[in-house]
Structures are given as structure tokens and as C-alpha cells.
């Protein structure tokens, strides 16, 4: 018999954890002498009450969907991919190379090419940690952390020494050709009478991320590979018994994970900055962890959590713009969400389990 009903596990616990995180965030805001209610209003106002606000919210959400999916696919195989950041950085490099060195006739083709480039580079960056974990038992958490740093150094080198146009100051590549410009929400939904999403970076990549959600859902719950990934994640010995190769699954799951993380760079590098800049990932790889935890590793949950974090990001930026609350508030909120939904999960779970068992005893 389960200790508690399924709905409690997938809805109640995350909700309570989220409320706890929100409560402590409010305390933090109070502690720095601001009003949490006002802050929340400002965030909602800036992120959700204007179409441009949504444009930013969904732009950030797109990143988080990709990295959240990346973390959750690996999680299904019991692999903690903390290297989304590095994989996304390399993904950006893939995008840049594809956009800069291949003459694209139209954006619809270039986005495909860039996606392949991003996925390939991201996957490649996940391959070594995956291989080392599978073959040599090197702990993937440590190796992926190390690979984040190595990626930063590598990207720095490539940008400064190779891709930076002569005489330019920024460590950034040249601007991509116009043919690679992705339609933004503004391009797609604005009309002369009703300007929408003005200047917001959300772009067609958002739909790509929705497709990724769907694909991951099918992959995990409808295909043999997904079945094997989940089986391996639950029990490695059983997987071996069933003829599922741990090496193969570890590598494949990490490749998919890395590819997804890399894909977020299509959004940032191609969709927004239209050139490769140094820090385009801005921690989205790590936020993927929070998103996956909150979304219970389910693509739909990831989608919801990503939008929530997109809201936090955009709202936080607005706060920084109009109040003296620094943008780091989001980092704190993010930390609290990870803490309560991830690390302190049992703090909420155990009392609830006891409650449900007691309830059941009484009813029995």
C-alpha cells in the first residue's frame, strides 16, 4: 500500500513546499526593509500585466523549459546532471558556428540547423561525464560541475581568441546574418494597430520548447527507450537483469539531457542576442534543477515550473528597475525553492505521510 495518495505526492507536496519558499522569501524582503506585497504587485505588474512583460516571462521560460527538461530526463535515469550550464554554453557555440559559417536562405531552415548544432554541442559536452560515469564510475555530479568551469574557460577562449571580430571590445562573436533572425513574438503577433510584445525577446523558439516538452513526454512514457531509462533509474541491478545496458542508458540519457540543455541557446543566442556573447546562459542551467524538482520531472510540470520561474525572473528584473531590491532576490527565491522542494522534501512529506496513514487507520 502506498503511504499517501498520488495526488498528494504530485500536487500537495510541491504546493506546500512552494508556499514555504514564498513565505521565507517574503521574510527576506521584509528583512531588507521592503514590502513583500508591494514587491509582488510590482512583479505581477511588470511580468504579467503587459504583453511585453509576458514576452520576457516566456523568453525566460523557454530557457528554463529546455534546462528543466534536461535535468529531468537525466533524473529519470537517476543521473544528477548539474552541468546544464556548461552544456548550454557549448550549445551556444554550436548555434554560433552554424549561424556564422553556413549561409542560410531562410530562418525556418536556420533554426533547424542551429537546433542541431546546439543539441550536438550540448550532447557532446555531456558525453564525457556520461562516459566516465558509465565506464569508470566517476561521480557525474562532480564531473559535470568541473565541466561547467571548463566550458566557461573554453568559451572564453573561443570568443576572445577566435570569434571576436577584430577591434571589438566585447568578448562576443560577430552579429549573425539577417537570414538567421528568428521571428519574435512582436514580429508574429503585433499589428500596426495593436502593438504587442514590443521589444520583448520571446521568439519562435518558445514553440520549439513546447514541442520539446511533448517529445520528452512521449519519449519517457511511450517508448522503449523511455521505459529503459526509467527502469534503469529505479534499479540498476534490475535493469541489468532485463538486459538493459547501464552504460548505454547512462550515455543516451546524458546525451539527450545535454542536447536539451544545449538547445536553450537557440533561444538566447539566436533568438535574442543574435550573436554569441560570453554569459548568455546566466545560470539557466542551474535553474533547470529547481524547475525539474518543482515539476516533479514531468514535462507538464516542468512547463508550469518554467513559466513560474520565467515570471520570477522578469518580475525580479522589474523590481531591480523600479526599487532598490537587487535582482539577486530571484537567486534567493530560487535557492529557497530548491531547498524546500528538493532538499527538505521530507520535512513536508513525512508529516503528511503520517497524517494520511492515520486517516486511513481511522477510516479502516
Amino acid at each position, binding site marked *: 500500500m502506498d503511504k499517501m495518495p498520488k495526488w498528494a505526492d504530485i500536487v500537495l507536496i510541491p504546493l506546500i513546499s512552494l508556499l514555504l519558499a514564498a513565505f521565507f522569501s517574503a521574510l527576506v524582503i521584509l528583512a531588507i526593509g521592503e514590502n513583500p506585497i508591494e514587491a509582488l504587485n510590482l512583479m505581477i505588474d511588470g511580468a504579467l500585466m503587459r504583453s511585453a512583460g509576458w514576452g520576457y516571462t516566456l523568453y525566460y521560460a523557454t530557457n528554463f523549459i529546455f534546462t528543466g527538461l534536461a535535468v529531468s530526463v537525466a533524473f529519470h535515469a537517476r543521473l544528477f546532471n548539474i552541468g546544464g550550464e556548461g552544456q548550454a554554453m557549448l550549445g551556444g557555440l554550436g548555434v554560433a558556428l552554424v549561424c556564422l559559417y553556413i549561409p542560410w536562405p531562410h530562418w525556418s531552415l536556420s533554426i533547424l540547423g542551429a537546433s542541431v548544432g546546439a543539441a550536438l554541442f550540448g550532447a557532446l559536452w555531456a558525453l564525457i561525464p556520461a562516459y566516465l560515469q558509465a565506464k569508470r564510475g566517476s561521480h557525474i555530479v562532480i564531473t559535470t560541475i568541473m565541466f561547467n568551469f571548463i566550458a566557461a574557460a573554453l568559451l*572564453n577562449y573561443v570568443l576572445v581568441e577566435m570569434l571576436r571580430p577584430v577591434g*571589438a*571590445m*566585447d568578448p*562576443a562573436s560577430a552579429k549573425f546574418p539577417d537570414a538567421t533572425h528568428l521571428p519574435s513574438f512582436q514580429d508574429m503577433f503585433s499589428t500596426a494597430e495593436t502593438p504587442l510584445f514590443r521589444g520583448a*525577446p520571446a521568439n519562435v523558439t518558445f514553440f520549439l520548447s513546447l514541442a520539446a516538452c511533448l517529445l520528452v513526454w512521449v519519449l519517457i512514457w511511450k517508448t522503449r527507450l523511455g521505459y529503459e531509462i526509467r527502469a534503469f533509474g529505479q534499479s540498476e541491478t534490475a535493469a541489468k537483469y532485463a538486459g538493459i545496458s547501464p552504460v548505454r542508458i547512462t550515455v543516451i540519457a546524458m546525451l539527450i539531457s545535454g542536447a536539451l540543455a544545449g538547445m536553450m541557446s537557440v533561444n538566447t543566442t539566436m533568438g535574442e*542576442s543574435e550573436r554569441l556573447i*560570453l*554569459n548568455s546562459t546566466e545560470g539557466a542551467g542551474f535553474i533547470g534543477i529547481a524547475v525539474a524538482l518543482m515539476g516533479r520531472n514531468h514535462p507538464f510540470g516542468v512547463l508550469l515550473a518554467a513559466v513560474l520561474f520565467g515570471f520570477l525572473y522578469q518580475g525580479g528584473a522589474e523590481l531591480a528597475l523600479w526599487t532598490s531590491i537587487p*535582482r539577486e532576490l530571484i537567486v534567493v527565491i530560487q535557492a529557497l525553492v530548491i531547498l524546500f522542494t528538493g532538499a527538505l522534501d521530507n520535512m513536508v512529506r513525512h508529516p503528511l505521510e503520517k497524517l494520511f496513514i492515520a486517516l486511513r487507520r481511522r477510516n479502516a
Partner: protein
Amino acid sequence: EPALIFDLGGKFDKSFNEAAFSGATRWSEETGGSFREIELQSEAQREQALRRFAEAGANPIVMTGFAFGNVLSEVAPDYPDTKFAIIDMVVDAPNVRSVVFNEHEGSYLVGMMAAQASKSGTVGFIGGMDIPLIRKFACGYVQGVKAVNPDATVIQNMTGTTPAAWNDPVKGSELTKAQISQGADVVYAAAGGTGVGVLQTAADEGILSVGVDSNQNHLHSGKVLTSMMKRVDNAVYEAMTAGVDLETGFNVMGVANGGIDYAMDEHNAALVSADMKATVDAAKDQIASGELAVHDYMSDNSCPVE
């Protein structure tokens, strides 16, 4: 209402951004006006900050730092009624005023100063992020040093290749120690917030330092030889004073028009002898009159002296 956007180093970097801030403060004190400001924390905020200020009706919008160049050239056309001023970068748009400084001239002057103050004949240069702009500082400085003492050695280091290099005092401090151990007894820091560490360590270790952008002489009174002043404060002050009538186009600030200078005050009076000052002032006049041309690294991406 004007707005001021600080680059990643932050408002209190004791140098570049702080100079901009003091210009704005001077304006607001003199006029009683108020201005909007934001310190950027991330790359993605650049565009957002520009747009939100523009939409909120801020005018003119002043920003410090070359990194805004790309974004501004995209945003400016969307808000034709808003005036923008960008410092350290040229953006070609009808509603943008681009302010650039002849840092090489000022660096030349402090280079002369450093060479005269040095007993060991070895002086140092610590740059922030390794970009052409900072090489321009370095190149001017070396020219100044060699003008006084052709045999002098100049040790050059850059803090890094990423924007983090503007804000890494630990590394600034260690680089200074490294230069001291190589014999340098005057170091010039053109490194934003990193320079705080350079000046601190120079003071700790008993050598002289040269500040940058703002007048940094007071940071360690009696231990900072002088500062290469880049009157970002003036540029901001002027932009804010002009308000919506801000004259757009290209604006070069140099020794000739007082945009660039070296700092003398009570904190370094004891360090600079009348002789030294006279030599430097002579060069300053020559530069102002055009008699002496200091090579600008960015004109051809190379420096004639090492």
C-alpha cells in the same frame, strides 16, 4: 527626467561608474532635479533597462560603457523621441550622442609622472579586461614613461578576458604583488573595481600607484601618485544639463577640452615635486596644442612602443 545606467562594475567601483555617478549627483544637486538609475547585474538586462526607461519617458538616457553599443544601436531607432548618450562607444544613430575620450593622452601624462617618481626604473600597468580600449590606456602610458626614461621597463598585465576582470580586486592585488616582486615601484591601474585591490596592495607594500577615471588620490592619501582623470562626470553632467536638447553626434573629450587630465590635490602634493609637475604640464600643453601627438592604439590596433 534623465536616467543613468551603470555598467556591470557597479556604481561604486571607485572609478569609471562612480565618476558618472558623481557627475549625475552634481547635476541633481545644482538643479534640484532627480534622475533614474540602475546598476546592471546581467547582460540580458541591458536592453530591458534601456527600453523600460525609454518607455517610462526618461530623457535623456545616459549609459556608461562600450558594452551598450550593440544594444543601443538596436533600441535607439525604436524610440526616436528619446535622446541617448553613450560613453566610451560610438553608436551611429540620429538620437544618440557618443562620447569618447582620448585616454591615451591622459595615460601619457601619468606615464611621465610615474617614470619620474620611479626609483627602480621599473613601473607597472594593470589593465582590467583585455580589450582594445584598455590597450589604448597601456600604450599611452608606455609612451609617457619612455618619453621621460627611454630605458625604463614597463610590466603590463591584464586581469582577465571577461567582464569579471573589472571587478576582481583579489586578482588585482595579486598582480600588484607580482609586479612589485619584479621590481615595479609605481603601478597604474586601469581596471575599474579591480583597481581597488591594486591601490590597496600598493599602499600596503609601500609603493606608489596611479588611479584612473575618477580622482582616486584620496583612497590612500600620500600613497597614490596621481590619477588619470577621465571626466566622465563632466560628460554625464553636460548630458543631463542639456536635457532633451542634448546635442547628438560624436563628441571627443581630450586634454585639449579638459575632458582628460591628471589629478593634483592635497593627497599627492607631497609626492609630486615642482619639477615633475613642470615636465608633465609642458607635455600637457603640447598635446593640447596638437604639437605632440600621442599614438592611439585603437587607430591601428598596435602600439609603437612596448
